[in-house]
């Protein structure tokens, strides 16, 4: 079913088929790109990117640590390139593996991060939708998924949903690959993980079926709202950031992605009582805290949306509304499915308000103004001037 008026909704609805199409090709690419020597040399991973790509990195941390069995640090590209790359542990060639994620492959900061990582002796992998790109040229290895975006009406630039999923899917398959080659997962376990990842297509289908109409209804009912909060824990902190990003891109409303615990320390004190607050959980490690936060949020008048598996009844009973996730999704894989309700809501919010995606050009928001691709980059690491070093 197409939604000619809303290509963002079309993207969401295409996700199950996209997973099924992408999974075998990506798995093949990952196996052929990451050889035994590299996988066995890795002591720690850094996954870096900007925007959605940074969110994908955050969402994959638990999967890397669980499946690959290696400590993993997701970092924004600015943090990695300007504040961290000079301090990577000097433990030998390819012991630090840096995965730079950029859909276009042209983002300046992520390219800078991989360039400096190579200089620091780390192994570098470009994970991108564009095999011929600056990022791909900068990295030693390239994992390109390269599926074309869905067609868009002329002049419309749609917030990306499919590319986020592609980045997440690739990162999960990389984690399984490293874990299998290292012997952290045996053949049967790795095969089961790959099968579970492919089965996310079915879980995505169920989630879309359960949320599509409900998200549209919510966007209409809460048309009056002008700011939105999304909170999640663990891997779904990434989902919270991504969901808020889609609202910002979609309708331009103020939207914040927050860690579930941090919500209690910060947004709890925000003045406006009825701010729609989406609490995202896969019913995993963060569930008890999510229920406490939901109770607190309702007590201060927030409109609370539970974005949680249907089986998590304790949270549903507290929340004002529910955007149900399919049951049976392991928490480590849940960001792929949990991103769906927020993306649908953002898409319908823009439609209900009649707001063009990414705002119409003008008011200083001309293409290139943010300099995401043309930002000044460093050719080499610069040691910070540390007050303690001054003589």
């Amino acid at each position, binding site marked *: 079913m197409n939604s000619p008026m809303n290509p963002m909704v079309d993207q969401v609805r295409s996700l199950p088929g996209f997973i099924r199409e992408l999974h075998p090709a990506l798995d093949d690419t990952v*196996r*052929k790109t990451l*050889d*035994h*020597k590299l996988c*066995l040399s890795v002591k720690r991973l850094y996954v870096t990117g900007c925007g959605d790509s940074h969110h994908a990195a955050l969402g994959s941390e638990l999967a890397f640590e669980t499946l690959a069995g290696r400590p993993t640090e997701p970092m924004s590209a600015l943090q990695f390139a300007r504040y961290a790359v000079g301090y990577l542990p000097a433990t030998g060639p390819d012991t630090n593996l840096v995965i730079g994620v950029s859909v276009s492959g042209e983002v300046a900061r992520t390219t800078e991060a991989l360039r400096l990582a190579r200089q620091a002796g780390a192994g570098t992998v470009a994970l991108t939708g564009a095999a011929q790109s600056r990022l791909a040229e900068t990295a030693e290895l390239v994992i390109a998924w390269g599926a074309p975006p869905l067609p868009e009406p002329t002049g419309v630039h749609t917030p990306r949903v499919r590319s986020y999923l592609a980045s997440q899917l690739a990162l999960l398959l990389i984690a399984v690959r490293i874990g*299998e*080659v290292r*012997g952290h997962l*045996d*053949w*049967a376990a790795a095969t089961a993980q790959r099968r579970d990842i492919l089965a996310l297509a079915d879980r995505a289908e169920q989630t879309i079926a359960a949320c599509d109409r409900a998200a549209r209804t919510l966007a209409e009912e809460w048309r009056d709202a002008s700011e939105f909060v999304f909170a999640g824990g663990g891997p779904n902190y990434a989902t919270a950031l991504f969901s808020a990003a889609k609202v910002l891109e979609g309708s331009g409303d103020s939207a914040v992605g927050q860690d579930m615990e941090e919500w209690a320390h910060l947004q709890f004190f925000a003045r406006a009582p009825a701010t729609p607050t989406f609490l995202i959980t896969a019913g995993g490690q963060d569930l008890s805290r999510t229920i406490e936060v939901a109770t607190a949020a309702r007590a201060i008048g927030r409109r609370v949306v539970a974005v949680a598996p249907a089986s998590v009844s304790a949270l549903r009973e507290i929340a004002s509304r529910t955007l149900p996730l399919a049951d049976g999704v392991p928490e480590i894989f849940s960001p792929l499915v949990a991103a769906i309700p927020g993306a649908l809501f953002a898409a319908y919010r823009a439609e209900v308000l009649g707001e063009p995606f990414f705002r119409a050009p003008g008011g200083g928001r001309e293409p290139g103004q943010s300099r995401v691709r043309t930002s000044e980059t460093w050719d080499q690491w610069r040691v910070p001037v540390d007050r303690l070093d001054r003589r």
Partner: protein
Amino acid sequence: MKRLTTVRLETPPGESLLNITDQVQAAVVESGLAEGICVVFVPHTTAGLVINSGSDPATAADIRSELKRLVPTRVDFHHTYDTPADAAGHVKTTLTGSSLSLIVSGGQLALGRSQRLMLAEFDGPRERQVLVRVMADP
């Protein structure tokens, strides 16, 4: 006469030698073959077949460790699609072979007193099949 039987088994993690003599013997008995040949075949590329002593488990351990010494798990195999253990398993399987021809006499496998037929698993855990085909003497 039932000429083809498929024995299915789940192997443990890593490398192992699994005694499948009883299952193959049972297939021979079920076939009704009295005199002839039994061909045993493993349709896998990281598991093979060996005949050796089943009396002392240490023998199986010696075979496993010698094969490991001959084909160590290392990082410079050309085949890197799966794991180093998988790549080594392919090579070990060529050393053991994938099929055996056994004499059947009096409805029994004509094995020596301590001889046992073993599936050599080089990349477990897996679900494996062993095909048993019997042929009567002309």
